[in-house]
């Protein structure tokens, strides 16, 4: 979706304001929203992208997470608006749910055992090849930022295959077939014209579906 979240290249958002000695969380409720969101484990990025743009700009990061978590719970049928308002369960417990465990939480920060990459079709593109980012404008979730569409780049390397993260407006995967992901280099001048330093470039990881031969 061409939403406010797709910010690359926008201007007039003000200066970057780093906070000295910033804590990991700024309030107790942020800790709980972070943990709830991780534990429910059903949230997808698209819910945050659906937040109306003016709200998106005004809300803090964890307010967005909270909004997205609430929408996810409602859409997944895990809780109703009335239950969320009151904090009281009407429908009883949710049967058959996997409950996130302490072991799950600790496993998050352990390197997984090495696994063999899934086998997929041979990569269509190779290092050094010129490619063009497709000009697509899906209304669902995509990982192809607007500022790259129809721009020319160069394949730098090929990563392991990964299923496309794009989702339709119902949250369903657009294409589950694992496909190569490439690191693609774009000259800053290809993206921004003469105002950019000719030495500079932007590297972006792109699924094969996002690319076509130049």
């Amino acid at each position, binding site marked *: 979706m061409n939403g406010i979240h797709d*910010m690359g290249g926008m*201007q007039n958002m*003000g200066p970057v304001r780093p906070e000295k000695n910033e804590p990991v969380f700024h309030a107790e409720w942020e800790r709980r929203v972070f943990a709830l969101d991780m534990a429910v484990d059903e949230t997808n990025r698209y819910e945050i992208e659906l937040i109306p743009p*003016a709200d998106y700009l005004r809300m803090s990061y964890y307010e967005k997470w909270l909004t997205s978590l609430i929408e996810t719970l409602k859409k997944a049928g895990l809780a109703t608006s009335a239950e969320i308002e009151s904090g009281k369960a009407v429908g009883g417990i*949710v049967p058959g749910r996997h409950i996130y465990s302490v072991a799950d939480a600790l496993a998050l920060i352990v*390197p997984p055992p090495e696994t063999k990459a899934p086998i997929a079709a041979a990569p269509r593109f190779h290092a050094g090849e010129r490619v063009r980012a497709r000009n697509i404008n899906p209304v669902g979730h995509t990982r192809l*930022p607007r500022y790259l569409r129809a721009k020319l780049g160069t394949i730098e390397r090929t990563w392991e295959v990964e299923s496309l993260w794009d989702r339709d407006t119902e949250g369903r995967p657009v294409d589950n077939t694992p496909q190569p992901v490439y690191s693609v280099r774009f000259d800053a001048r290809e993206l921004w014209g003469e105002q950019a330093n000719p030495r500079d470039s932007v590297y972006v990881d792109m699924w094969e579906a996002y690319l076509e031969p130049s």
Partner: protein
Amino acid sequence: MSTTRRELLTVALTAAGAAVTPDLVHAVELGLDHDHQAIPSDPTLRVKALESLLVAKGIVNRANLDALVDTYEHKVGPRNGARVVAHAWVDQAYKQRLLAHSTSAIAELGYGGAEGGVMLVVENTAHVHNLVVCTLCSCYPWPVLGLPPVWYKSAAYRSRSVIDPRGVLREFGLKLADDVTVRVWDSTAQVRYLVLPERPRGTENMSESDLAALVTRDAMVGVAKVTVAQEGAHA
């Protein structure tokens, strides 16, 4: 001041494809456009109610939520990344492995997992400066840097890092010469990035742990250099 804010809103609404009318901008300024989204009026109360509900429904368990918070507040953070950097500074063979096979080299020191399943370490030199951003959301290498700071997730940083990286770096107090190459890494897929900063001069006799104490989170995102005067990464 209000003019600036109004302009910002207008730009944002226009970019989002909204038909911008003076009434809409005014409504947004006054916070009157809340009816179509559940926005917490008091996050503390809203979140307490939500947690109670999800515990009662058997969807989450309080002890496990506590474990999640403890994990990301205390068990990961930029100290992990600083150890990786310092080890690369003192061990050339490790540095080569780190640049060629970043994920497994980081795992050698015990770090890995969620938001770090595929890592790429990029090296800053006298001629090349690397900067990491996520323009679409907030992708960040959790196992080595912890959760991202607010500025990394801000509209200002996400929007401008790709179009004006040198301007953003100046705001962090880092002025790069025109003949230095800037590489911006926009994290859009499964790969997460860590910058290997330049080892500062005058540190030849320092121990690995003293070197690690010099390495800041900002240097590993690429918005700062490591200097001897610095106090070290924020927790």
